[in-house]
């Protein structure tokens, strides 16, 4: 009886531990379908931001920057779509993608109320901050979590691309001052 009780507690303790471990893993380490969704969402957000800037800005450097964001993010997202199709993976919506989209909608609304130099500055400053944030996520979470080698490789190219965009945005921001 005593033995059975102890083993019962041990079983519960083990379950609890395993339960919290798998929860921690789920929270810290997104799956490949989730990673694909996050990466695609991050790109699509910057495409939308670029379209808004192309429509609103009259500064030629800002418009040229936005055009290169549009071009690059559409290209990398096309590669991502081709890859998930090839791997037969369905991107899976998740809390990180939703948080990114929510923040992006708020930013777009804020920018839509600005004009001229105030818009240019707010757009470019946000591009610097946004690429920095996405680079942090790619480097610290998405790339280390990715299981599929081709997905990992695409994310690594994406990180170099986003780092380039961050620097490009910083150059444009410095020129606006």
């Amino acid at each position, binding site marked *: 009886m005593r033995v059975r009780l102890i083993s019962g507690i041990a079983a519960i303790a083990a379950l609890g531990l395993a339960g919290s471990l798998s929860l921690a893993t789920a929270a810290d380490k997104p799956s490949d379908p989730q990673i694909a969704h996050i990466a695609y969402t991050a790109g699509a957000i910057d495409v939308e931001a670029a379209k808004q800037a192309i429509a609103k800005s009259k500064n030629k450097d800002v418009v040229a920057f936005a055009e290169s964001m549009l071009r690059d993010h559409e290209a990398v997202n096309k590669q991502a779509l081709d890859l998930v199709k090839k791997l037969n993976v369905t991107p899976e919506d998740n809390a990180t993608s939703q948080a990114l989209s929510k923040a992006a909608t708020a930013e777009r609304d804020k920018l839509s109320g600005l004009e001229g130099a105030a818009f240019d500055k707010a757009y470019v400053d946000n591009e610097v901050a946004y690429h920095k944030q996405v680079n942090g996520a790619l480097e610290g979470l998405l790339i280390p979590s990715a299981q599929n080698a081709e997905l990992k490789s695409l994310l690594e190219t994406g990180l*170099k691309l986003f780092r*380039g*965009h961050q*620097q490009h945005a910083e150059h444009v921001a410095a020129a606006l001052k």
Partner: protein
Amino acid sequence: MRHLLLIAMPTLILSAGMAQSATIEVTIEKMAFSPAEVEVKIGDTIEWVNKDAFVHTATVKGGWDVQLPVKKSGSVVVDKAGTLDYYCRFHPNMKGRITVAP
């Protein structure tokens, strides 16, 4: 085949009594110039071959600006000795260097 032609051409020029010049190929793949550093001579051609899905440039500040569309190439002929640092205007983290010997 193309490489054979490139090798054959300078030989012809040399036999005609002119300075030997070569074409040095730099590949762009996955957001990087490869090789990132090349050593060439005056009169040589640098040809960048863009294998990425992204538009790049090979730009020297205050100097030339070579546009490199997706899956296309572009080139310059170097005409003075020295060190040329170049970068991509769209992705300033992409950097390369050309050392030109007289």
